[in-house]
């Protein structure tokens, strides 16, 4: 098995074979239209070990971790955890962080809660 596919499976704890391809995850996703690879496709990409396309996908940074897909999946597949694991695989690599320290000052404003920065750091950086 492809090493990265195996890693994504392990980190996410998701068994893609449970998926019955109903599309409810995509139907629930608030970011659906922003995504190039749709939530339900993540499952088959991992199943088919097409990891190259997956890690290059901009969907990794569109997922909100809102857990709507996880909540509603009738088969307990957790597509959101899969997307998160794919993002982890990327940002854990050197030089692959999605948020650099340099760009932060420009993104800040006075009202912005610490929580937002913390969360973004956790999601976008190693």
């Amino acid at each position, binding site marked *: 098995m492809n090493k990265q596919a195996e890693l994504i499976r392990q980190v996410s*704890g998701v068994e893609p074979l449970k998926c019955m391809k109903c599309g409810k995850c995509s139907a629930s996703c608030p970011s659906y239209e922003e995504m190039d690879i749709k939530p339900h496709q993540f499952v088959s990409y991992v199943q088919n070990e097409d990891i190259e396309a997956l890690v290059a996908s901009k969907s990794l940074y569109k997922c909100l971790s809102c857990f709507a897909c996880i909540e509603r999946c009738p088969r307990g597949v957790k597509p959101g955890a899969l997307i998160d694991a794919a993002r982890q695989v990327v940002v854990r690599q050197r030089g692959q962080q999605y948020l650099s320290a340099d760009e932060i000052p420009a*993104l800040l404003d006075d009202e912005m809660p610490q929580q937002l920065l913390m969360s973004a750091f956790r999601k976008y950086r190693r």
Partner: protein
Amino acid sequence: MTYSYYPGCTLRTKARDLDKYARACAEALGFTLEELPDWQCCGGVYPLGTDEIASKLPSVRALDAAKQKGQDLVAVCSACYHVLKRVNDDMANVEDIQTRANNYMGLEDPYKGETKVLHFLEVLRDRVGFDELKKKVVAPLTGRKIGAYYGCLLLRPGKVMGFDDPEDPKILEDFIRALGAEPVVYPYRNECCGGYISLKEKALAGSMCDKIMDSAGGFGADCLVTACPLCKYNLNQSGKLPVVYFTELLAEALGVKEVAL
């Protein structure tokens, strides 16, 4: 009754109000929030990766500290509550995480998810009781039409959070009713505000908040109430309706708003 209290980073800075009102209301309602000494930031998001341990440790420390005191652990911020509750669930049910986290911590008495994590709203519902709360209201918010905004973190995943029906919650509506106002039920109340994505994807978060505001406004809400500083921030960027913390409403109704500040 005394609870261990985990305020979280934002309640110490941008969301001071959320914290102050919570403490004042607690006193008014006859319970005490005892802040944990040396708490560390929960990280804002729950680390979904099954191999992530270090990022869960601040939560484990807080949970264990509450266990040492024999108290339930209360959070007010949705994100802190979410992270604490999920880490606690891991510590109780996921053997691998339990073992590895305890190995890191090197505790004499390993932590196995013994602490009960409560959101301030749960204390109101399950410990104080909304009927009891209603009796303590001195300045009912009569005539106000308030939309409850839950967001994601309080509710999902429903099985772990066990907070309310994740698809059709009612705790905030009951809360609003207890304060004498009229709750406005609208379908986007459990849809995401955009969360952390607003840092780099302002437009995407903005469109989500617009949908929420439009839906609430359409059903007649004149303001939204939330428990999450990030939700409040994101919703405020849309600005179609005013957004307040639930503790502020509570303080107002209990007549302790001025005392708090």
